[in-house]
């Protein structure tokens, strides 16, 4: 899990580096890009034996400076596609903030404190094992619970909009426990910066 997160970060950095280079508009010929590892989202079903590290190792040092630059220069779509804000997950038919969810929200609070101008929408989502109508209320509760926790950490409520999607926009349409778990979430979308 941790290595996957790190990989995702590295991919982000590489993309950011590429974009940053592009933004300079110098007529540099396209650098032979390092072979991109598959994006973290597409998990290979049978896990390959050794977690491939090769691509990621060298640029680690450059992290902080580049992150700063790219956050500022990226569009909302780019930011949201590879969001620095983590989703929070919920138990079945529950809007309670678990210890794991607290960790994610603590991290999100740090990001929001760093980028004071960001306004985010917290989307409440549910799995299909609740009814469509009731899930509209449950999604609302989840989004509001995540907002309340962030407000308790000092993030102004005006920067945190909430919206319930019930079970209308599942992240994984599957009918497995794993899919359901992914769909019970508070999802963060940066709406202005």
């Amino acid at each position, binding site marked *: 899990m941790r290595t996957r997160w790190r990989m995702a970060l590295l991919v982000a950095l590489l993309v950011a580096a590429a974009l940053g280079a592009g933004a300079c508009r110098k007529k540099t010929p396209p650098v032979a890009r390092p072979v991109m590892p598959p994006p973290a989202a597409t998990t290979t079903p049978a896990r390959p034996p050794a977690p491939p590290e090769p691509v990621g190792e060298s640029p680690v040092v450059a992290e902080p400076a580049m992150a700063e630059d790219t956050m500022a220069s990226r569009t909302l779509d780019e930011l949201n596609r590879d969001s620095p804000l983590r989703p929070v997950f919920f138990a079945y038919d529950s809007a309670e903030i678990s210890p794991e969810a607290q960790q994610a929200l603590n991290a999100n609070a740090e990001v929001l404190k760093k980028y004071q101008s960001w306004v985010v929408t917290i989307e409440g989502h549910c799995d299909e094992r609740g009814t*469509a109508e009731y899930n*509209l*209320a449950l999604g609302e509760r989840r989004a509001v619970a995540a907002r309340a926790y962030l407000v308790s950490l000092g993030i102004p409520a005006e920067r945190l909009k*909430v919206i319930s999607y019930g079970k209308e926009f599942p992240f994984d349409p599957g009918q497995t426990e794993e899919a359901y778990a992914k769909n019970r979430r508070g999802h963060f*979308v940066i709406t202005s910066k």
Partner: protein
Amino acid sequence: MLRTNLLAAGIAAALGTAVLLAGQAPPAQQPPQEPRPTQEIALTITGEPGTLPRYAVPDFIAASPEADTLAAARVIGQVLWDDLAFEREFDLIPRDTYQSIPAARSLTDVPFDRWRELGADGLVIGSVRRVGSDLRVEVRLLQVSTRQSALSKEYTGATANPRLFAHTIADDIHQNQVGLRGVARTRLTFSSDRDGERLGGTVEERTVKEIYISDYDGANQRRVTTNRRLNITPTWSPDARSIAYTSYRRGVPDLFISNIYQGTLENPTKGRGQNFLPAWSPDGTRLAFMSDRDGNPEIYVMNRDGSGLRRLTNHPRNDVTPTWSPAGTHVAFTSDRGGSPQIYVVAVDGTGTRRITAESYCDRPSWSPAPYNEIAYASRTGSGFDVKIIDLSTGERRQVTFGEGIINESPVYAPNGRHLAFMSNRTGRQQIWTVDRMGRNLRQITTVGNNTMPDWSR
């Protein structure tokens, strides 16, 4: 011979319904009675003792030679057969057994003996003729044994939708023969992602949902909204001229009313809080809905234009999914105030809240029209949901769908209380189905994309 203009009949029916609903006395109400044609002798066609009367409905006669008249004659016969079968008041003789009987060339030239051999008690014959730009349809319901006419009517209307002739005739026959308000001219509305349009600017691929309408049998499916956002929970106004729904067209979920014949839009809640799940009062003057404007999901009631807002529930847990009693005196809703989502009933003045279910998880109460006094709802059964009905006078419950691990949810009643529309994912995708209130006569209404949250026009 009674001559009826279809449009005038439609308007008259709509007005009749409105008047009836406004003046209805709680709790017993009669289905609307259309005036009986006085020039006819009341004749009820019966079957063998203990059996339903057997009906035959052959193709109508094309009395003028245009291609669309020929097509209409065929369509009307088939659709009328289906409409009459739907209420299960008649035993419809399969149409593929009529081949041996020579097709009638006029309404007076009927081989009664042949129909009698086939076992028909009642025979519906009709003719279709083009008159100017309209179709004129003559129909007779004949008692085969006596050769007497139980119903004789003439209808004139546009050529564009021959099915509407069949639906009107079916409703007239049900009214005339069994005093039943048929639903052949009613319509469904639902939310559909069939267009496959993606929401722009989001991280994940999200398919928009638009509001659709269709005839009660699934024919004539048409799109109502075109805003390319999420549009859900549509509900017909009692006069079936407007649809209220939840739309994310401005980002935050809010209530809109689409006046489908004028193409105008109203926004009674004007973006205050998140607003969902509008439900029309039976007289069409008010809407109940769910909103988080005061901090958590509660039920509110307002006038159609947004004025006169009143909060109906006040509980820190979720209060959601309102539905009106047929007399407009009570609202049923879902609440998890007791720990899990269950159905509650409250008087429309906010008093006398009582819980009526005690199961594992219940939602989407839908209050039956009179004469039935029951509430349909979705109930968790194992890992899925099923449609159940609770009789409010006896407290007895019965299950309407049986789908282990399958989701059957969002039940709503047909205006005569005899049928339900609901969503089921039994075929893999989410589709609208109808079933009668005893769990028989299951029919699939939609097949394209995912279709959810139906409502049935009054």
